[in-house]
């Protein structure tokens, strides 16, 4: 499988070397359809719903979910984006640089907020996201949708909607795009 060289690589550099494909493009599309229906069913409608994609990997998934919901229910669901960098617990331990400014043009008070991210791993990003969310109001409920749950949780956090559960090693990386989900490792990373 080909190596992927990304314009934006993690701090320690290196090249993502994919070992296996977990889902293909169709798989991702189908998972998003299923999750859209689950969200609809779980919340008995869309009236109070807000999707919040986490920068950067959750944003396109949140938009896709909103498109699906519009198609199913003919109803527009507001989509916000959230960059949790300033809420992370590892600032000062490693470099934490935000990616794109948060875009949350609505009050979250009394809304049902579905956080959307690509991969759920230790749970620390979601912890940061929950801290951030409350700065935008007091939601009625916060739910979590992720494409991949790869285990290794370090906090008591569980997803409400999952594309796929994938057992992984800690040193592996999961790459989620519309074209599919790859599992691999970083090569030639600086020590």
């Amino acid at each position, binding site marked *: 499988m080909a190596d992927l060289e990304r314009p*934006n690589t993690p701090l320690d550099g290196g090249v993502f070397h994919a070992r296996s494909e977990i889902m293909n493009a169709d798989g991702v599309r189908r998972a998003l359809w299923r999750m859209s229906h689950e969200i609809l069913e779980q919340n008995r409608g869309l009236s109070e719903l807000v999707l919040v994609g986490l920068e950067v990997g959750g944003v396109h998934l949140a938009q896709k979910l909103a498109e699906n919901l519009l198609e199913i229910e003919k109803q527009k669901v507001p989509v916000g984006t959230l960059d949790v960098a300033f809420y992370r617990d590892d600032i000062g331990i490693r470099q934490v*640089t935000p990616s794109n400014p948060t875009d949350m043009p609505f009050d979250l008070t009394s809304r049902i907020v579905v956080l959307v991210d690509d991969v759920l791993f230790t749970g620390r990003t979601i912890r940061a996201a929950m801290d951030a969310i409350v700065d*935008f109001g007091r939601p009625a409920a916060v739910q979590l949708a992720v494409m991949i749950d790869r285990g290794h949780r370090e906090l008591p956090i569980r997803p409400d909607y999952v594309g796929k559960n994938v057992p992984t090693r800690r040193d592996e990386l999961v790459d989620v795009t519309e074209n599919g989900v790859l599992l691999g490792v970083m090569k030639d990373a600086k020590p």
Partner: protein
Amino acid sequence: MTENHIRGIDDLGKSGIEEILALSDHFHEVSTRRIPKVPALRGKTIALLFYEDSTRTRLSFETASKRLSADSLNFSIGSSSVKKGESLRDTIETISAMGVDAIVVRHGSAGVPWMLPRWTDAAVINAGDGSHEHPTQALLDCYTIRKNLGELNGKRIAIVGDIKHSRVARSNVKAFLALGASVTLVGPKTLMPFNTDDWGVETTDQFDSVIGDSDVLYMLRMQLERQQKSFVPSLREYAKEYGLSDSRAQSMKPESLIMHPGPMNRGVEVSSNIKEHPKSVVNNQVANGVIIRMSALYYLLGAGSITKLEGFNDE
């Protein structure tokens, strides 16, 4: 020990300036929130060491610290304690011993921020040193220009007034040039630096010759005491030759800006209602002050370095 400081614009270079401006977009968003505060620098301690009184700049840094959830310690040191015999070194070592992560320093003498790393491991931010540099002012000016004109590259900026004694001018020249703007310094020879050969700028004593071509007229504050030392014969004559009057503002380009670092001497370097002029972005500058200082503090204490960390959102 950190090598990361913002003592002058040269500590940042083009990439550092860009990084801080990029962070500022985030903190701009934060500042619009109902709760305009993030926990990013929780547990960090920032010392505000002001040898020169500057309520505006100090409050700006203090607000920035608070909005990042950092603790700030205020040291306002009059010149009296210098006379009491405590050397700069003693003061810095004392503050450093309290465990601070950054020292924001303003001093009446050029170069003090460059001396601090000899005696402390804390990151140093220059909040103005003598007539030398005032980098966070330059950063907020760049941010303001970028927000209003899109970019600085290719823009023509005239800095007008007392260049000789201006730390704002020195930092702005470096920052504007780094971002691709061209700069003309305007003022009487008495208020020009002795030698600007290496600065990469044009100079003129004819204000009217640059007004129509400039994308930005950056008006410097005229220290009122300059008149007494014969830098100019009178403030009236200065206002006539170098003040931005309503009629001069009329001959500015359509898409151009009036800027001023504040506080203004209305009726001297600018006419009395210039601040409210449609081209004036002076109020933006003030608002952007807190945002830029949040970026500067986060750049040093949070982001660590300027390398982007994105890509594999495995978490």
